[in-house]
């Protein structure tokens, strides 16, 4: 068994128009830059993308939006992207907005074989419309279902050829849950190492969840809100 592929183009082999993808990241932090570029290049269309955000106009998933490759977004917050808002309000883009915690938990559930669970988030709001309501300890909860994807694409800091991953800082975010929830999960990493080079005690994503891995290149890691203080 060899999980290592040469590059992003090889990693996304088998991704076809109309499929559902999960893409890790929060804002532009921890997004699979190499694979997104390869998806633009590949030109697949009518994609359903599950991702907490939709990038910005000219980076991240915004690149796929520009090219009209996305049919539907499943996200929690899309406030940084004018093109997104335009396509959504004009009806060109289907959008399913999900509370962030429910999105994270639904991805985890999809990977963990939990088909559905109850959460209080969204009760009494649009999010709860049409969903089963049940009270626990006197408090209303709604039933939410697991999310899975044809392909999940995650970005890690380091990975070994077994697929074990370590993320850096808050670039971890949704990546670990999405890694669990892909029928096929692709990991792009800044540094690919041999088995034994990562301490087994500090692995964030066990290799069992990863089917393909490669070392990405030219990470831009764009900062959305550069905030500093003066010395």
């Amino acid at each position, binding site marked *: 068994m060899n999980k290592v592929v040469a590059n992003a183009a090889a990693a996304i082999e088998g991704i076809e128009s109309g499929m559902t993808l999960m893409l890790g990241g*929060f*804002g*532009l*932090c*921890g997004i699979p830059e190499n694979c997104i570029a390869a998806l633009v290049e590949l030109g697949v269309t009518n994609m359903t993308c599950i991702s*907490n955000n939709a990038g910005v106009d000219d980076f991240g998933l915004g690149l796929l939006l520009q090219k009209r490759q996305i049919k539907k977004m499943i*996200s*929690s*917050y*899309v*406030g*940084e992207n004018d093109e997104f*808002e335009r396509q*959504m*309000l004009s009806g060109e883009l289907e*959008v399913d*907005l999900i*509370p*962030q*915690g*429910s*999105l*994270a*938990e639904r*991805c*985890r559930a999809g990977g963990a074989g939990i088909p559905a669970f109850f*959460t*209080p*988030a*969204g*009760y*009494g*709001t*649009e*999010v709860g419309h049409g969903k089963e309501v049940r009270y626990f300890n006197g408090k209303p909860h709604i039933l939410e279902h697991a999310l899975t994807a044809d392909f999940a694409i995650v970005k890690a*800091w380091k990975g070994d050829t077994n697929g074990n991953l370590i993320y*850096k*800082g*808050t*670039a*971890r*975010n*949704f*990546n*670990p*849950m999405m890694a669990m929830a892909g029928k096929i999960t692709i990991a792009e990493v800044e540094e690919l190492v041999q088995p034994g080079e990562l301490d087994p005690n500090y692995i*964030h994503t066990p290799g069992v969840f990863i089917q393909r891995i490669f070392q990405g290149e030219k990470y831009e*890691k*764009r*900062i*959305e*809100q*550069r*905030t*500093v*203080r*003066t*010395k």
Partner: protein
Amino acid sequence: MLDKIGIAKRIAQELQDGWYVNLGIGIPTLIANYVPDNVNVEFQSENGILGMGPFPFEGEEDADLINAGKQTITAMPGACIFDSATSFAMIRGQHIQLTVLGAMEVADNGDIANWKIPGRMVKGMGGAMDLVASAENIIVAMMHTNKRGKSKLLRQCTLPLTGVKCVKRIVTNMAVLDVTPDGFKLIERAPGVSIEDIQAATEGRLIVEGDVPEMVLA
């Protein structure tokens, strides 16, 4: 009348030693700058960090270390990083003692709306629906009226809700108010703001009992 910093300063007085606190985007973020000296709190950012520190010095920004507002941050000694599922486990499991967030509208039964203006603006709820559905202690930080001078403290929300009957306290540029079964109860007035001013700017039921003190800001 308070400015945004004044609102942040007033809310900072609510912080209690040992609390874990989630601050929303906007005015709430400013609160971190005004924590009282004798109080230790840890700030959680729902994208996956506990123990957020101040912004980095110029040149020391790390693209892999941001807060929920996508701003570059630093980590305090004793901080920890976690994934989004764990982050919302903390929130949903009520391990965070206080949530402070902004709002477009608050109703006098504690309903809150802050994520969508149908047909005009849809940014998404982000983590707000999880936060308001679970937090035991929710303070809303906002201006008392909107840009057109209309009250944001209503009898009923007109915008799609973020959560129902969840807000406990509201701190605006004009007042501190608590949500009670009978409506907004006026707790404090901002410096120079009269009860009449507040009544005029509040559409929801307003309860004024006895002398309402003026806020004292450090």
